[in-house]
């Protein structure tokens, strides 16, 4: 299921499974970079593509990113390299990946038929600034990203009291990934000040799914996204934190399947 693809001058690590119209899953900074069980369900209806962003896994180019625009162009190039540009494309983006998805859908409205935004970055609200991702320990990150601290991934993160004890391979991966994120999201912090007013261009059938207890991007962002994208529906999932794809993936599946085909 895992393959490597040349996209421009860079290499992309990509997982692909299923048959049917393409679904591009754009992952977030932490937690959903593995092939999630819910993708097996989705791949009954779609060909699911999960590329890893530059700097993540074996995808190169994370140290060359200079802003969100570079990532948008990278993904347009990826669509071309996969031969799915101009197809009946569904994009599901979570967290940082949700920001990328919103940018693609607003800049290239004709390319995206269906859009699912899950706890998406990209906007800024003075009254609800996003939580701090950088510079935090794994236990602090678990508290930021999860509502259910008993979730196995949350528990695993909370148990890492000394990063130095982790296998070096893992530390390297984390360092590379955080650098890639910082190159795009340091300042303006995880958002594009101009995005909100561009969202009116989105033509995709859109649903916004958010955890009510999201501490990274509070639920006010869900309402803002839903209000700004023409015709967007909104589902707020109770008792759920930022990582909806880990805590309540069935909510995302339900909304994904409800979009007109």
């Amino acid at each position, binding site marked *: 299921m895992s393959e490597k693809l040349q996209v421009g001058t860079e290499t992309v690590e990509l997982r692909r499974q299923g048959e049917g119209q393409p679904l591009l899953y754009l992952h977030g900074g932490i937690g959903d970079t593995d092939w999630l069980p819910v993708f097996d369900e989705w791949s009954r209806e779609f060909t699911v593509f999960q590329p890893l962003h530059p700097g993540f896994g074996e995808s190169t180019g994370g140290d060359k990113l200079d802003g969100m625009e570079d990532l948008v162009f990278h993904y347009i190039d990826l669509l071309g390299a996969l031969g799915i540009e101009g197809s009946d494309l569904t994009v599901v983006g979570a967290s940082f990946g949700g920001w990328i998805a919103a940018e693609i859908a607003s800049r290239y409205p004709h390319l995206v038929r269906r859009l699912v935004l899950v706890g998406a970055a990209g906007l800024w609200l003075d009254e609800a600034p996003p939580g701090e991702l*950088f510079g935090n320990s794994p236990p602090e990150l678990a508290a930021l990203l999860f509502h259910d601290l008993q979730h196995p991934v949350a528990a695993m993160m909370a148990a890492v009291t000394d990063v130095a004890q982790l296998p070096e391979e893992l*530390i390297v991966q984390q*360092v590379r990934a*955080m650098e890639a*994120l910082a*190159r795009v999201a*340091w*300042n303006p912090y995880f958002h594009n000040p101009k995005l909100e007013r561009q969202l009116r261009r989105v033509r995709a059938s859109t649903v916004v799914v958010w955890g009510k207890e999201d501490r990274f991007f509070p639920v006010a962002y869900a309402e803002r996204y839903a209000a700004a994208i023409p015709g967007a529906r909104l589902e707020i999932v109770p008792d759920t934190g930022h990582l909806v794809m880990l805590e309540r993936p069935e909510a995302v599946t339900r909304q994904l399947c409800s979009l007109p085909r």
Partner: protein
Amino acid sequence: MEFYFFHLMPWPHLPAEYQGPAWIRCPNELYDPERGVAVYNRYLDELVYAEQLGFDGVCVNEHHANAYGNMPSPNLIGSILARQTQRCKIAIVGNALPLYNPPLRVAEEFAMIDVISGGRLVAGMVVGGGPEYYSNGLNPAQARERFYEAHDLIVQAWTRPGPFVFNGKYYKLRYVNPWPRPLQKPHPPIWIPGAGSLETMEFVARRRYAYMGIPYFHRRVFERNFSFFREACEKEGYRARPEQMGWLCPIYVAESDEAARREYEPHFWYFAKRLLPGIETSPPGYTSVRSAVKLITSRSDFLLFVDTWEQVVDGRYAIVGSPDTVVEQMIDMISTLGVGNILALLQVGTLPAELTRRNMELFAREVMPRLRAWEQQRRAAAA
């Protein structure tokens, strides 16, 4: 050999109840401006006093949003010293170039200080510590690229006739033409601190600048780093001169070893345990991946992770004792490291004014002359 009196201008009044880091998010409510009046002015008095005591120079540095060092603008301090001292060098070590927008400002302010002081500025240039990238909003992943480009802009601004165009990746200026120009030719000497990155050393060696070892490491780290620096100079085809190497060390001199430890220790721990925490913050992209991993996995040689006085002494994290002890330990360190600029940190943490002054006086009167004599002898013997 030259002796510099280095001041960090720390905040000595952190309340006991506050146990968090001193950097980035240390609430600035804890800064009491009413007490700050006395704190700043006392520290300035100490810097001026250093010249009277015979130090070759004074050093200040730049840090933001923290209790460890209250000089977000070291150039303000440098300009005060330009008027309040007459002979000593004024080493601003340094301006965190990427934090200036545009960095031409550094060229301008340094030129002002150099002219006003009659050509006494040492122009230190730094990337800016990891915490500064949280405090100032600059992207840490751009830090080093910006630093090198800013350095180029500043040196060109000092040496190329203006107006000229500078079209960099980060800094694009169509009329670079700073008034004033610095007095020293070709420009004030440039010092660049480093914590061991080969890239920095190669850069300093190639430009024939001076390399300053970033402090608070075990002696073996300095030994290794200065050795690498000398190699870097060899690769450039010349032998590193001692005045190209600066070593910053906390020092305390008293009548006896026992008195020195007794008087100094609590203040040193305030510095190491209350003011240092947070300094090690390394934001994403700030260093290469390899360096970042090394930073995470090998912590033991840094003062932040030292817990006993024995470790402090063995590792030479500080040199503390009677004049004889201090002279002996410094001769050992100086001959091992081969450094020519001794940056003496004679005030740390809560060390009060009386003890600071006495420390400065004992160092200047009992230690410096003997080290200078030792150096003379060594030169004579080599000749």
